[in-house]
């Protein structure tokens, strides 16, 4: 019972309070960041009693609009599947966060609470499964719409997502080899150890090639520019062309949630997860011998903060990439996925194996 309450509390806090809010703010960031990059000002006309708040209220206006718009079901659509598909999309974008370690153990009233919603000890496989299921929301939605453009968009999406899942999977094998575990919490903990006594053992240092491949394939997985051939709202239209109202809203939210999911995974695997350099369970221990002891709650807060900061920086970079690059042509997407990323990730495994064997 207590465990259930604990899980529910963590769910409400991490997903309800943190992840969904970041997703909402991302819609604002997307507008404003792109505007500042392009020497514009960006949306700022939604006001409440004349207060502009830098256009923050556009989030509320959007939400209101999406909720009150008619949800139109086109003629000949498979009603049940059509309604189900966006929910599947959203669900699998959300459950992915269950395995993300947002921090190490927090001791509250004598109970040890790991700051991870579900402690799945096969975390990486779970993440693969969740990412794999994301294709279904897209393909089912496309198919059920009874629209050729949607169907073609769905085909592009499924081909792209399946191709890049291969690269994602293979690129993480290097991480598994280095840290010798598939538990996300263990991987994050292992990155707190030091290399040669001073360098934090973060994934990006041990697996630089793996990091690049994972990031690229991850961005492709979110179906955003430069890999937005499945969507292409403005010209080639994609799988959610027939969706209106909250159906479209869910697909839209899924996009942002997937971006956050990929960013949190990258942080967990490659940027040290929740680790702050030289911070251990009982406080800071610097390599030059100094030590600052901290209570457990401060350590947990620092770790969570460090995770958030890394996440936000990474999201900023992903947004910058999204507003910098033009869209890849479809054959370029396939070429990049199968002929560059996949061989590169295989080479990464080979190099990792050779180095690990030499070091012993």
């Amino acid at each position, binding site marked *: 019972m207590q465990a259930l309450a604990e899980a529910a509390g963590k769910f409400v806090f991490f997903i309800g309070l943190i992840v969904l809010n970041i997703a909402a703010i991302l819609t604002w960031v997307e507008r404003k*960041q792109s*505007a*500042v*990059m*392009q*020497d*514009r*000002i960006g949306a*700022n006309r939604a006001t409440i009693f004349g207060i*502009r708040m*830098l256009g923050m209220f556009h989030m509320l206006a959007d939400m209101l609009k999406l909720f009150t718009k008619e949800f139109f079901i086109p003629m000949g659509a498979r009603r049940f599947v059509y309604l189900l598909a966006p929910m599947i999309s959203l669900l699998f974008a959300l459950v992915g966060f269950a395995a993300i370690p947002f921090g190490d153990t927090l001791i509250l009233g004598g109970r040890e609470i790991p700051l991870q919603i579900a402690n799945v000890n096969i975390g990486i496989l779970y993440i693969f499964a969740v990412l794999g299921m994301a294709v279904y929301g897209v393909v089912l939605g496309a198919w059920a719409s009874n629209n050729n453009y949607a169907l073609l968009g769905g085909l592009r999406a499924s081909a792209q997502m399946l191709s890049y899942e291969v690269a994602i999977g293979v690129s993480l094998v290097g991480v598994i080899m280095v840290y010798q575990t598939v538990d996300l919490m263990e991987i994050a903990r292992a990155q707190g150890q030091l290399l040669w006594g001073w360098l934090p053992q973060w994934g990006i240092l041990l697996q630089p090639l793996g990091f*690049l491949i994972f990031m690229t394939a991850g961005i492709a997985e979110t179906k955003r520019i430069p890999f937005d051939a499945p969507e292409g709202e403005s010209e080639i239209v994609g799988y959610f062309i027939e969706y209106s109202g909250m159906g479209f809203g869910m697909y839209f939210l899924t996009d942002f949630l997937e971006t956050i999911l990929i960013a949190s995974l990258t942080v967990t695997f490659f940027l040290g997860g929740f680790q702050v350099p030289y911070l251990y369970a009982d406080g800071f221990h610097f390599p030059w011998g100094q030590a600052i002891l901290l209570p457990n709650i401060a350590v947990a807060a620092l770790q969570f903060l460090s995770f958030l900061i890394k996440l936000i920086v990474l999201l900023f*970079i992903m947004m*910058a*990439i999204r*507003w*910098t*690059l033009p869209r890849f042509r479809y054959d370029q997407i396939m070429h*990049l996925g199968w002929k*560059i990323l996949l061989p590169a990730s295989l080479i990464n495994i080979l190099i990792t194996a050779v180095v690990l064997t030499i070091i012993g």
Partner: protein
Amino acid sequence: MNVHDKYKPLSWWDKTYIPLVIDGLAVTLRHFFRNIRLHILNVIGIKTKERGAVTYQYPEEMRPLWPRTRTLHRLMRREDGSPRCVACMMCETACPARCIYIVAEERPEVQIEKQPKIFNIDLGKCVFCGYCVEACPEDAIRMDTGIIDIASYTRNGMLLTKEQLLNIEPKVENYVSRPDLMEGQPIY
């Protein structure tokens, strides 16, 4: 990259897209941090020469008009207050949109024979080409009022009569005297 080696085959390193992505990110992020710096300086009240954005927030903030911008027409008056127009029909003839309608009447003075009885411009049809101004031998019609927010809910509202055209208050302050010295900061 030099334009002349545009058609050189990409090297192996270029084909990974990494240098090109970094090049692109450098451009956009340079703009981002430059503009953010200007925005923050403006918010805390430090005036800067450049603007953080090229946007003009139109209803609140008028974009300075170039001195030769053609804006709403007006009819000029003589010193005694009568219209300068002599109803020669030159503007009506020159108008490509045929939106000027003039009816002439006799004028009591001997030196000047005619004056307009009716002088209508239908702004709904006007293309703001300025030919009427060019054609006028008396400099009686000008397009220098600085008024650009011309709108109406009805078609009749777009029709300006002689009296209206004679009594338009020009907003010369909308024009810049030195366009290279445009100042002011955007609103957020």
